[in-house]
């Protein structure tokens, strides 16, 4: 979770951009904001956690996000971290359900956990009647998805109803100057017991960090340890590490935003 990094001092730069930028005078405030920052423990030529935050202002964009892509910089090689040593296998039909009754929640192996965070969504019963829902997000390595390394996103909501939502996704090879891409599909909930449409308005994820703890077997004992997070190069771009987020919506044009994660200390 973003809040799990109390010392994350680096201020993130956000630059959200519309699909078709208007003239400078007429540019409206973007409905999408995106920030990226490395954890306070991050050091150059070492390792560090990475926090990402996407927010959609529902007053400026009343649409349902169906897909989120995050392009990470090639200099921060997610694939070379110690994260995602196991795989979480989820039957395809469970993703189609999206909403899973909590009596039989999906449980993923702890050593498949990559990131933790939180999400906020609006449950829209009508244009006037909107409820806010919040939940904890866990991102796991999943089984191979369309010939790409798979991802499983689990959202455990607590308010206003206790549910578990499952979203499929995958890692992908992002175009230069980016490296590994993260894709999370967030289809509209098909069987809402509350008869409301759900629109994610905020998602925060921290890749690695103190809330990701693995277990390994040694001498007949289980030993808990913190896996190495993302390797950070010795050198750092002047503006910081550039990220890009691309959001697709069911009922609105695609939006994208860029963010720069400031360089960590040496």
């Amino acid at each position, binding site marked *: 979770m973003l809040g799990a990094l109390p010392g994350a001092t680096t201020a993130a730069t956000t630059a959200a951009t519309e699909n078709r930028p208007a003239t400078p005078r007429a540019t409206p405030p973007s409905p999408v904001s995106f920030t990226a920052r490395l954890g306070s423990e991050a050091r150059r030529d070492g390792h560090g956690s990475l926090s990402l935050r996407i927010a959609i202002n529902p007053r400026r964009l009343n649409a349902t996000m169906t897909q989120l892509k995050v392009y990470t910089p*090639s200099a921060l*090689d*997610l*694939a*070379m971290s*110690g994260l*995602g*040593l*196991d*795989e979480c296998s989820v039957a395809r039909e469970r993703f189609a359900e999206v909403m899973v009754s909590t009596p039989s929640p999906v449980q993923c192996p702890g050593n*498949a956990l990559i990131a933790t965070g939180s999400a906020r969504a609006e449950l829209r019963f009508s244009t006037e009647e909107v409820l806010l829902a919040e939940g904890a997000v866990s991102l796991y*390595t*999943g*089984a*191979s998805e369309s*010939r*790409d*390394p*798979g991802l499983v996103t689990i959202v455990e909501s607590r308010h206003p109803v206790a549910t578990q939502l499952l979203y499929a996704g995958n*890692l*992908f*090879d*992002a175009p230069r100057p980016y*490296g*590994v891409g993260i894709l999370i599909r967030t289809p509209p909930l098909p069987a809402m017991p509350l008869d409301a449409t759900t629109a994610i308005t905020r998602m925060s994820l921290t890749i690695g960090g103190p809330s990701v703890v693995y277990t390994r077997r040694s001498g007949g004992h289980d030993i808990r340890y913190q896996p190495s997070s993302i390797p950070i190069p010795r050198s750092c771009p002047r503006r910081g590490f550039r990220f890009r987020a691309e959001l697709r919506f069911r009922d609105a044009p695609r939006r994208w935003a860029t963010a720069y994660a400031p360089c960590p200390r040496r």
Partner: protein
Amino acid sequence: MAATAVAVAVSVTGVATTSTAAKTIRATENASLRLVKKSGSLFDHRGTVTGTVSGPATSRIRLKGLSLDGTVTVRSRNGQLRIRIRGKARSGGMKPRFEGTATMSGGTGRYRKAKGNGRFTGTIDRSNWAASIRAVGSLTY
């Protein structure tokens, strides 16, 4: 990083002669390699290859993001054969699976003018960076 073993094996499944000067065969290779040195995203391996062209082998592989790019060099009794492999990770976990192209790219001795194309699949064990690679394709020499 712990020392790693990588294995590569190659075997020939069929032979078709095209001329007296050059011979083209269909080769299947299996390699088993262990890590001897890691420098950033660059991995040096040593091990053995069995198959059409068998013998001790070395490799230099770069892993960057989801991409793999490297060369496996087999030292057989008849000369060295270089196999270039380029591919992508298809799965995650402890032993990500890679797939891509395998290109025979010359060597020494009998394989000085070797060429050919094929596919490879392989895994890399993230606990010790050992690699297991299987390449299938044509080999002209």
